[in-house]
């Protein structure tokens, strides 16, 4: 994209970009801009869930279950608070690291390394979902937690927990599927040869790996907030 006017830095650039002709986001591929806007909308969705969790927790006169105890795991003969959650956090952060490296190697057109980094990211994400499923099973079957009641405290705990972690886990699952799809495209050379995808006539480009990366980092970002507000607070 050629610029007949020099791009200005800072706040002057902000004003001139937003008020410019044709395109406000200079040098940003359309896929990246659209993914950012989608993530902004998803931020509002998750914020609604977390705010409603805040509301029910603040307004209930019944004590809220203690997450450190609810989510403790028995290890070495003693309950370790939030052990599984700590492992899940570590896994998701690592997957963000491998994703960022995949984007870098993608731009360097290193198909093999990019492919493997994407697959590792997907495997880490899948293991996260597996652990979350284990957590759900433990709470539903062993502890008797339901969306409408639980034996540990305020009845709204189950509804908040299942809604928030359910939506997050679903997002992670979608991410894993997309990661595998992009990984296969990278390995087959679809992005090098700019072949169009299954559902589109548009040519594949390595920006797609970065766009995928944005989604995956968002999933990690949401977990940072869930971890802080639901498990730690």
């Amino acid at each position: 994209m050629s610029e007949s006017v020099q791009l200005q830095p800072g706040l002057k650039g902000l004003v001139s970009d937003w008020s410019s002709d044709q395109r406000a986001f200079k040098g940003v591929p359309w896929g990246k801009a659209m993914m950012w806007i989608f993530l902004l909308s998803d931020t509002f969705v998750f914020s609604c869930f977390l705010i409603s969790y805040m509301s029910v927790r603040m307004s209930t006169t019944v004590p809220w279950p203690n997450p450190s105890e609810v989510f403790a795991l028995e290890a070495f003969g003693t309950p370790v608070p939030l052990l599984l959650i700590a492992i899940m956090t570590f896994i998701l952060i690592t997957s963000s690291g491998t994703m960022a490296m995949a984007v870098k190697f993608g731009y360097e057109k290193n198909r093999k390394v990019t492919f493997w980094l994407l697959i590792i990211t997907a495997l880490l994400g899948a293991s996260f979902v597996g652990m979350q499923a284990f957590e759900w099973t433990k709470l539903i079957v062993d502890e008797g937690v339901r969306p409408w009641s639980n034996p540990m405290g305020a009845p709204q705990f189950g509804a908040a927990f299942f809604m928030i972690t359910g939506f997050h886990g679903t997002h992670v699952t979608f991410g894993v599927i997309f990661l595998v799809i992009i990984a296969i495209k990278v390995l087959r050379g679809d992005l090098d040869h700019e072949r169009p995808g299954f559902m589109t006539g548009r040519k594949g480009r390595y920006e797609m790996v970065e766009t995928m990366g944005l989604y995956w980092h968002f999933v990690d970002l949401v977990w940072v907030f869930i971890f802080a507000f639901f498990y730690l607070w």
Partner: protein
Amino acid sequence: MSAEGQQHPISTYFWIWGWLFVLSACSYAVDYMAFQGYLRWSLILLFMFLKAGLIVAVFMHMMWERLAIIYAILVPPIAILIFIALMALESNYTFETREIWFSDWSNFFTPAEHH
């Protein structure tokens, strides 16, 4: 074409991953060491925002983008902060109302005497 396809040394990613790991360990320590009250909450929020900032700025590449897209994405969530404040006020009111009217205290306080 400043931000498109820009690459950084691999050490950057390892540094940020390392910091995220440290901050996560700190967050976990807040619970493990059973801090309570304002100290607990302020530490939880501090580590949370630091981690979120690193992920958005470096992993999601925002710190190398132009202000036009940075502001377009990061300014609207201010509405969320306002929403949080509103709902906190609302929920606090609901809690107080339930405490006063839906508990044994209603035996001791009548509407005429309550102030």
